[in-house]
């Protein structure tokens, strides 16, 4: 119980240090934020602003008598006389107006010219025999799609809309062909009927046409695989580990600080066993780093939408990192005579080992350097923590994560064993 009291007191003191709070929480998030804004211009509330694609259509379709007869008799009145006109109407649908701005051209040359002149991004050329080819069971209805080669998103959307629309029509046609094979020539008239039904359904469900284009901002559900998150996720993880080790060291320093403040000798005058005092101090270090890690994991998810991986793997990775960071701090503080020597530790040991540990993050994009970088980073405990973290982020299973976790625990056992031994001897 007294150990818990000591831990709570130490944590209270840690969280009253403005400098400590900055290093624990603000700096890791700020550093990652810098990368976030450097690599992704999505600071405006996370909304993805998709510009309207200008489409110009040259509809030369002359129609087909059979098709026209059926479409004219459609309940609710389909006004389109040709299949080309149906395509145009589909593109001009109100639900697509946020995405497409459709205009008509007199002929294919002017439509192509509009694209060449950058007045439109896409030109759709509907040939004169489009309906006729469609109505012919052996025919092949083909649209020409002409786009600005420097663009991808806008033309891609138009292509998607058309593909879905035409896929549906093609499917209908196949169904009709099967029916023809089975039913004989008298069913020819039924082609139009089937197409009519399809078009009726297709146009009645225009909203679905818009729905087939799912426009999502980079923060939507597929963010984990977005390039931005792929870049800043490991960076945030690296920062989190770097500063977790910092916190482990800084909070472990409370042992030396209390010695200098004379509160530690005073604690020894109370009926509190020495092991309870040491356990309390270690517990404070551990819990402070736990709080820091959990806050940063959650904050990074909420702010940057970083997916850390499966809960069990992330939990174990976090636990192992916390234990290692805490024991690292205890070990290095046990080597110091006073807090005045800690500057060298902060500036030297923590920074150097932290940077070495993060090498593997910065060589992720370079396969040739990755092998060497990954090996070098494992020379320090931070490297093992980074490895476990990136593996968890990449969806590693528990069985593949175990070696990294055991590596971390190995470092911890060595650090903690030596650190506790030295402190126990010091205060014996």
């Amino acid at each position, binding site marked *: 119980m*007294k150990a818990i009291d000591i831990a709570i*007191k130490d944590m209270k003191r840690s969280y009253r240090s403005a400098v400590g709070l900055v290093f624990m929480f603000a700096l890791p998030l700020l550093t990652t934020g810098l990368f976030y804004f450097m690599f992704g211009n999505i600071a405006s509330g996370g909304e993805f602003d998709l510009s309207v694609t200008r489409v110009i259509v040259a509809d030369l379709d002359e129609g087909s008598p059979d098709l026209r007869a059926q479409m004219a008799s459609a309940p609710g009145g389909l006004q389109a006389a040709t299949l080309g006109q149906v395509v145009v109407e589909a593109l001009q649908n109100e639900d697509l107006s946020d995405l497409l701005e459709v205009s008509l051209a007199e002929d294919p040359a002017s439509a192509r010219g509009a694209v060449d002149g950058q007045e439109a991004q896409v030109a759709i050329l509907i040939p004169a025999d489009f309906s006729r080819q469609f109505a012919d069971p052996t025919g092949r209805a083909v649209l020409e799609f002409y786009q600005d080669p420097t663009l991808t998103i806008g033309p891609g959307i138009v292509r998607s809309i058309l593909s879905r629309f035409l896929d549906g029509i093609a499917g209908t046609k196949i169904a009709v062909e099967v029916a023809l094979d089975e039913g004989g020539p008298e069913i020819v008239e039924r082609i139009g009927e089937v197409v009519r039904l399809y078009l009726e359904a297709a146009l009645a469900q225009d909203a679905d046409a818009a729905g087939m284009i799912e426009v999502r901002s980079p923060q939507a559900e597929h963010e984990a695989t977005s390039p931005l998150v792929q870049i800043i996720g490991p960076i945030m993880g690296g920062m989190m580990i770097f500063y977790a080790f910092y916190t482990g060291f800084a909070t472990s320093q409370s042992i030396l600080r209390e010695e200098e403040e*004379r509160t530690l000798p005073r*604690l*020894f*005058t109370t*009926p509190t066993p020495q092991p309870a005092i040491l356990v309390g101090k270690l517990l404070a270090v551990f819990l402070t780093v736990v709080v820091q890690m959990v806050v940063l994991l959650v904050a990074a998810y909420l702010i940057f939408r970083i997916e850390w991986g499966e809960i069990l793997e992330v939990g174990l990775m976090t636990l192992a990192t916390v234990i290692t960071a805490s024991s690292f701090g205890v070990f290095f503080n046990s080597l110091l005579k006073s807090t005045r020597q800690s500057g060298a530790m902060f500036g030297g040991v923590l920074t150097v080992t932290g940077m070495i540990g993060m090498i593997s993050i910065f060589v992720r994009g370079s396969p040739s350097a990755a092998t060497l970088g990954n090996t070098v980073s494992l020379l320090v405990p931070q490297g093992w923590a980074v490895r476990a973290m990136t593996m968890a982020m990449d969806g590693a299973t528990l069985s593949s994560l175990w070696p990294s976790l055991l590596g971390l625990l190995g470092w911890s056992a060595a650090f903690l064993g030596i650190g506790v031994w030295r402190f126990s001897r010091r205060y014996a």
Partner: protein
Amino acid sequence: MNAIQVSELHKSFGDVKAVQGISFDIREGEIFSLLGPNGAGKTTAILILSCILRPDAGDAQVMGHSIRQDPMAVKAVLGVVPQEIALYEDLSARENLTFWGKMYGLRGAPLRQRVEEVLELIGLTDRANGRVSKYSGGMKRRVNIALALLHKPQVIYMDEPTVGIDPQSRRSILDGVVALKNQGTTVLYTTHYMEEAQELSDRIAILDHGKLIAHGTHEELVRIVGGLDRITLTLSAESPPLIEAWKATRGVQRTSVEDGAVSLLVEDSNLVLPRLFDGAAAHGVRITSVDILEPNLEAVFLHLTGRALRD
């Protein structure tokens, strides 16, 4: 009954013998002072009796518990006021008291009640929630002492609690020590201020170079110097022949020179002083100041060690 019984304690740090076989006992409910100059071994003795330092040899019993065999039981009956302020300055007085109360085993409502009582006692109820770092030196001293009183200990060690504070706070602390004695608490008080030891103590032990050179009541100690007066003189110039002449003067028992001042223990200052002036005139030396003290602890220390007990 003895609250504390010390037997042949020894403690060395390398070649430095900090405590050399001291023995004494302290009765229940008395104020016992350890008096001595800086480096005499007072704090080392307190640390040993607080079970922070382990003696190289010897033992002590505190309320019947051996500091060697049962240090936890000793600590449970003790309150220790360290020489230097030992507080968490980034916590408030109330938070400090609550934490230290828990370390002494207090919990829940009794702890909360005791914290309020102690805050009232040291007059800090209004400032209880302010951070200690914002307190004055005197306020910190009071909190420093209050922490040792939380669990109503049977024995309190106070290691030079009045060092570096203003006269008003010193007076307040000395009154507090007397109040503790009146409540039946045994107090072991260390100081190098002779006046404090003289005013407070039922009995006094004088330490020098780790050795206990005398102990007893104030009257018993003064009797050691045989009722001698102490005369301190300063001269216009150093004159070893004059000092030698004074040593041989009738009525002079002991002579020492420190920082240009000559201290003499004499049988009757009224008779001896004219002889001292005559001697100075004979050696052509002018006496620039004279200070006469009737028998006190300073004189005892001078008598026993040949040195002055300097503040």
